[in-house]
């Protein structure tokens, strides 16, 4: 049980934990609590740009830390650009780069895919709703 400084910091502070309120909030989730990992992102979009993001996470410290970081770093991203690219570019950084940045053990890397799925689900939700 050793975490690098970044993981420890984002796990401890989880600065973007929570939900956003309002009708202009777009939500995406992935995973199952019963299976040990569940992640949800809330996004507020303005003029096609992510203006704010929050996450909820039931999961290990790596999953919480990466979710928190994604919600923080995702702000400022252009929605269309993120969705247009291949799915690996939807996150602010690729899953592989994230797993390096947060020193995620190999056995746990599958959990980052759940974060990615939740993030993409939130993006898609936003894209669908803002397309109407």
């Amino acid at each position, binding site marked *: *049980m050793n*975490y690098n400084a970044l993981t420890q910091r984002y*796990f*401890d502070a*989880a600065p973007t*934990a*929570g*939900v956003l309120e309002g009708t202009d909030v777009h939500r995406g989730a992935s995973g199952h*609590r*019963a*299976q*040990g*990992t*569940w992640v*949800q992102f809330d996004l507020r979009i303005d003029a096609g740009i992510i203006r704010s993001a929050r996450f*909820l*996470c*039931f*999961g*290990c*410290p790596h999953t*919480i830390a990466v979710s928190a970081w994604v919600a923080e770093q995702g702000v400022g991203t252009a929605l269309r650009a993120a969705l247009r690219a291949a799915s690996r570019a939807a996150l602010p950084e690729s899953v592989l780069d994230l797993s390096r940045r947060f020193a995620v*053990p190999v*056995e*746990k890397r599958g959990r980052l895919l759940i974060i990615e799925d939740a993030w993409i689900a939130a993006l898609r939700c936003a894209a669908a709703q803002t397309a109407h």
Partner: protein
Amino acid sequence: MSRPVYLDYAATTPVDPRVAAAMAQCLTAEGDFGNPASASHEYGEAAAARVAKARAQVAAAVGAEPQDVVWTSGATEANNLAIFGVAEYYREQGRHIVTARTEHKAVLDPCRELERRGWRVTYLVPDAGGILRPEQIAAALQPDTVLVSIMHVNNEIGVIQDIAALGAICAAHGAWLHVDAAQSVGKCAVAFAEFGVDLMSLSAHKVYGPKGVGALLLSGRGRAEKVHLRALQFGGGQERGMRAGTVATHQVVGMGLAFEMAAPAAPEESQRIAGLREQLWQGLAGLGGVFRNGDPRHSVPHVLNVSFADVEGESLLAAIRGQLAVSTGSACTSALQEPSYVLRALGRDDQLSESSLRFGLGRFSSETDIETAVAVVGGAVTRLRRVGGR
């Protein structure tokens, strides 16, 4: 920086300072450093006398006779010696063994190995509180059952099995009864002969003695025949051929003194610790979504095992680790935490089996420690539930 509050006494205990002092006397040139097997000079004799005294101390603490004691490197070896030793010695008499799903790995893994070698093993499932009914054991016995191996006090949840009842059943059937009592001494009454146990495993480091030493008690009192073993290691003929290897004087001296000190301290210490555990349980229960594991009516006061709903286990540990030293169900051997197999056997679901904390209380635990524990765990649980949206 001050160290976290230590509440992991069931994993290991610090050595009592008096025990450490006695051990030190057996190490250096001024002390009794001789090889207890060196019969040709007084260095060896002095060491042998210390070993004999330790043997008597251990025996006295658990209601056994000095000649029942076979020194080992710990309860793991004692369990292995008991299980393989009896199975292989009596292999022509029968190849069926009865044990329980909630045993320590040092019992389960030798049983698995025996299955590989052609033995059959019945793994009993206790009730939701962790207790085995004697009738379960009776029903599991088969004509070729040679050994029943049931632990006394469970290391994860602290529940106590009714060993005396099992002793009578096994004796009537003619199966040998092995009891892993690594967690018992100093926490509840251990009466080797009275219980009617044939083999009993002991460990020093759970009761303020050193790691790396334990004993297997061997007896056949009450039986026409004494239990026999095939040894696991062979060599210099120590321990009447049952366990070769130089006896480590300082280690057995430490165990002997620790066991001697455990017995008289037990009732008083247990009462005090029961109070602390209650304080801890009340504090945690207030959080809601908190489940106590193991039947508290049949438990030693030194262990409190609690599962937390809506909290992921590794994150819980990570959130408290700077301030509190406790265990989850089982030590994780890989980066992935696995749900405790003991809690699973009690019927807990994966999430609760995996988000449990085992608090082990001990001689140096204080009320302040408990207050800290309640505050730290409370804070962590509340925060993680918030992060998880619950």
